[in-house]
């Protein structure tokens, strides 16, 4: 499914068009609302005018007719006075009235009782229309006692002409009519008769109903008491009043209008009928006191407005749509270059730097954007070119540095242990340049049962230092082959380096010659960090050195050598300042003190273990900090000779029963050394683990082999060695059992080496030739043995 909101948010022309559409729509709506309001007002006014003028016309017509009737009757009243003596002539007067006035349905001249003695109680000539002819008769009869009728009594008593309320005339024309009565007096001013003209209400209805300002309009006329005289529902006529009708519809507004109408007012009212809204326009008929009203449907009045509104709506919407469409097209045309430039930018981003930018013919912001893009493209091309060149250069240098590094590493001995065939000496060294190549160096070799060694540090780092380092390394080998004192070697090195030292590089160095038979160490220190001696009983001390000048500074400096008697079981730990000056992220140095404290705690006398401990402690200190200087450690231990005293030995065979013999051997040793039962027990446990390992796994099944277990007691330490010729197996590389696991998760196995590590203070494995040598050190508390 296509998400509409996505199209809107992704198409700029569409979005802008919609914004314009929104604004224009809002403005149009406001304008339209204002216009519609005034138009409505105007139309309303016009409509009311229209309806009212129609009403007025009708009223005027009615008034004219009424007036003409009144005038005709008044004129004929004179004729009546003239002919009083000839009663028979009076018929011709009434006939004349009816004949000459189309509106008059009938006319009578009604005399006072007994006015003409010969005619008795009633005398009233009466003429009326019937079937197109005019007929005459005597009106008064026993059944029709006209002296009591309103049309006779009211003008007689009031002495004024009078329009009667409409009534159903039974005596005369038998129709609903209204009668105009005019009193006649004799010469003496005495009332003698009433002359009348009857007007049919039908004629009024015709007149009133001719008012049709709107198609659905209907009309009515009410009498002085509110009785309906004209109504579109015939049964209402003379039977119901407007008040009753309005009240039955609960329309108080209409009741008020009815009051106004009866009161002879003119005006306009509103009411609801059958759910439709009507306007009612009304005006009085002055002569009779009646009121004529025309009711117009609201929707008729405003039909024009409604249709105009409909048209303007449709036109408005079409216009807006057209405008939006044109707006969209225009904006899209104008912003088309944006899309093209965006495509080009995407192309560039994908690496096609030479993509052709779209042509822009205009000179507006699009042009500026285009030019900026073109500039950017050029710059990118240039930068990429430069980057390629510099990357190639960098790669070349890096590759050269890698080769240089391997050459440099090839210059220092790095196969350990270097003298596997010797048990009296072990050596381990590590060189870690801060960069690919560095200025640290070490070297050693044995000649005539003497160990020659050097550790040094060329000033500076990187390639320059590495070149001096290479020279120094080679010089040491050469010089030490014919000079047999450290100070001699140092002095000769100094001379060689001082000559042609144009870049003023210098090198600190510690050179020693250790007599492996006597343990005598001759050494000369040329400005280097003094080494640390780890003593056989534990603990460590810094070797005291004479601070001679570093090499390469002063040709002819007189270097002084020194001598130190090394005990067997002790160790010489040499290092460069990269060790003690290793920094953490806060630039805090590792320090001499921390190094010395760490070395003092070391129970092991294995150069590899000690070196690894120190390096991992440095890593712990430095954490994420970058290594700032080359780090080098050279560590050398002078061990006991195999045939020395204090060495116990038992030869075992690869049979499980030999465990018993081993137990007896250890038991005897424990008694001799007065070991506590707990220590004996633990030693037994650890050795059984190690020995049974050899018995079970070192040799192929079925073959019988012998292997040795030796124990040396040196001060407070027992050093156990198991030497076998079985297949190579390093138990220290096996993972410890995880003793925190629950019973179910715990694998069977891995416990042996775990127990050995818990019991022994140091465990080290070495493969020498075809031999596995596992060395374990147990520190025994001498206080316990003395007590």
């Amino acid at each position, binding site marked *: 499914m296509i998400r509409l909101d996505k199209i809107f948010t992704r198409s700029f022309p569409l979005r802008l068009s919609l914004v314009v559409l929104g604004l224009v729509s809002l403005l149009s709506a406001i304008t339209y609302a204002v216009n519609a309001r005034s138009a409505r007002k105007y139309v309303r006014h016009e409509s009311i005018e229209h309806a009212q003028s129609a009403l007025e016309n009708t009223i005027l017509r009615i008034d004219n007719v009424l007036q003409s009737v009144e005038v005709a009757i008044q004129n004929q009243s004179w004729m009546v006075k003239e002919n009083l003596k000839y009663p028979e002539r009076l018929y011709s007067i009434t006939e004349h009235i009816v004949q000459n006035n189309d509106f008059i349905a009938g006319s009578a001249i009604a005399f006072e009782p007994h006015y003409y003695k010969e005619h008795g109680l009633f005398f009233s000539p009466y003429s009326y229309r019937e079937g197109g002819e005019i007929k005459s008769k005597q009106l008064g009869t026993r059944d029709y006692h006209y002296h009591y009728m309103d049309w006779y009594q009211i003008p007689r008593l009031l002495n004024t002409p009078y329009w009667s309320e409409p009534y159903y005339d039974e005596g005369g024309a038998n129709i609903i009519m209204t009668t105009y009565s005019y009193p006649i007096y004799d010469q003496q001013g005495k009332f003698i008769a009433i002359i009348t003209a009857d007007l049919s209400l039908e004629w009024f209805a015709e007149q009133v109903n001719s008012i049709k300002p709107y198609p659905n309009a209907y009309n009515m006329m009410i009498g002085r008491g509110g009785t309906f005289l004209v109504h579109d529902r015939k049964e209402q006529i003379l039977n119901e009043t407007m008040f009753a009708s309005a009240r039955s519809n609960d329309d108080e507004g209409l009741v008020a209008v009815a009051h106004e109408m009866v009161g002879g007012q003119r005006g306009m009212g509103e009411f609801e009928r059958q759910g439709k809204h009507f306007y009612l326009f009304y005006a009085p008929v002055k002569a009779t006191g009646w009121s004529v009203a025309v009711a117009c449907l609201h929707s008729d009045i405003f039909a024009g407005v409604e249709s105009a509104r409909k048209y303007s709506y449709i036109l408005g919407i079409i216009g807006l749509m057209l405008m939006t469409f044109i707006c969209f097209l225009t904006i899209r045309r104008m912003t088309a270059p944006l899309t093209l430039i965006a495509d080009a930018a995407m192309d560039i981003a994908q690496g096609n730097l030479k993509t052709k930018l779209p042509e822009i013919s205009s000179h507006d912001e699009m042009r500026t954007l285009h030019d900026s893009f073109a500039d950017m493209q050029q710059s990118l091309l240039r930068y990429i070119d430069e980057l390629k060149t510099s990357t190639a250069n960098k790669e070349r240098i890096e590759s050269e540095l890698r080769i240089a590094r391997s050459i440099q590493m090839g210059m220092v001995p790095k196969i350990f242990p270097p003298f596997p065939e010797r048990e009296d000496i072990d050596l381990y060294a590590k060189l870690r340049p801060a960069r690919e190549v560095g200025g640290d160096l070490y070297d050693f070799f044995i000649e005539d049962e003497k160990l020659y060694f050097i550790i040094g540090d060329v000033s500076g780092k990187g390639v320059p230092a590495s070149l001096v380092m290479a020279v120094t390394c080679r010089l040491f080998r050469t010089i030490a082959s014919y000079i047999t004192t450290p100070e001699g070697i140092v002095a000769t090195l100094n001379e060689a380096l001082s000559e042609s030292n144009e870049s003023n590089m210098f090198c600190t160095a510690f050179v020693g010659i250790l007599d492996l038979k006597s343990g005598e160490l001759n050494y000369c220190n040329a400005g280097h960090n003094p080494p640390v001696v780890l003593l056989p009983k534990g603990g460590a001390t810094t070797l005291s050195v004479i601070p001679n000048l570093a090499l390469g500074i002063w040709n002819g400096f007189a270097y002084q050598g020194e001598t130190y008697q090394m005990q067997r079981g002790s160790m010489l730990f040499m290092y460069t300042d990269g060790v003690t000056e290793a920094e953490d992220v806060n630039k805090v140095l590792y320090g001499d003190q921390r190094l010395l404290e760490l070395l003092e705690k070391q129970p092991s006398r294995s150069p590899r273990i000690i070196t690894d401990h120190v390096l991992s402690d440095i890593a712990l200190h430095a954490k994420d900090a970058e290594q700032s200087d080359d780090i080098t450690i050279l560590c050398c231990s002078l061990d006991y000779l195999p045939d020395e005293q204090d060495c116990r030995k038992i030869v075992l065979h690869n049979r*499980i029963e030999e465990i018993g013999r081993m137990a007896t051997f250890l038991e005897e040793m424990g008694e001799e050394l007065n070991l506590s039962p707990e220590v004996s*027990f633990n030693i037994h*446990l650890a050795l*059984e683990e190690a020995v*049974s390992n050899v018995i079970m796994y070192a040799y192929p099944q079925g073959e019988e082999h012998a292997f040795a277990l030796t124990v040396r007691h040196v001060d407070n330490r027992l050093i156990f060695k198991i030497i076998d010729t079985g297949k190579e197996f390093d138990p220290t590389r096996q993972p410890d059992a995880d003793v925190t696991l629950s*019973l179910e998760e*715990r694998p069977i*196995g891995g416990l042996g080496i775990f*127990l050995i590590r818990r019991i022994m203070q140091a465990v080290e494995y070495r493969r020498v030739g075809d031999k596995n040598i596992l060395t374990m050190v147990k520190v025994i508390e001498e206080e316990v043995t003395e007590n």
Partner: protein
Amino acid sequence: MADNFKTHKIYANYPMDALHLRDLEQDINNLEVNLGDFVVVDCAGMSYICSSGLRVFLTLNKNITAKGGKLIIRNLEPLVKGVFDMSGFSQIFNIE
């Protein structure tokens, strides 16, 4: 109900070194453990234990638990208890 649950007793009164491991394994293999049973290993007289001995206990426990039984170790000598402590076994075995 309680009558249905058996309590098996094993006396391991010998040093648990590589030589004697099989004795205990033998005893264990002869057991018929059912749901709810207790297996009590009485270690009075066990003067020594090696890691293989610990492994035997581990295997024993796994087998018994799998059958719905429960292993109880009794009367450990102090030094042997030390090995149990050192290896973390004290926390996972029922030792009385």
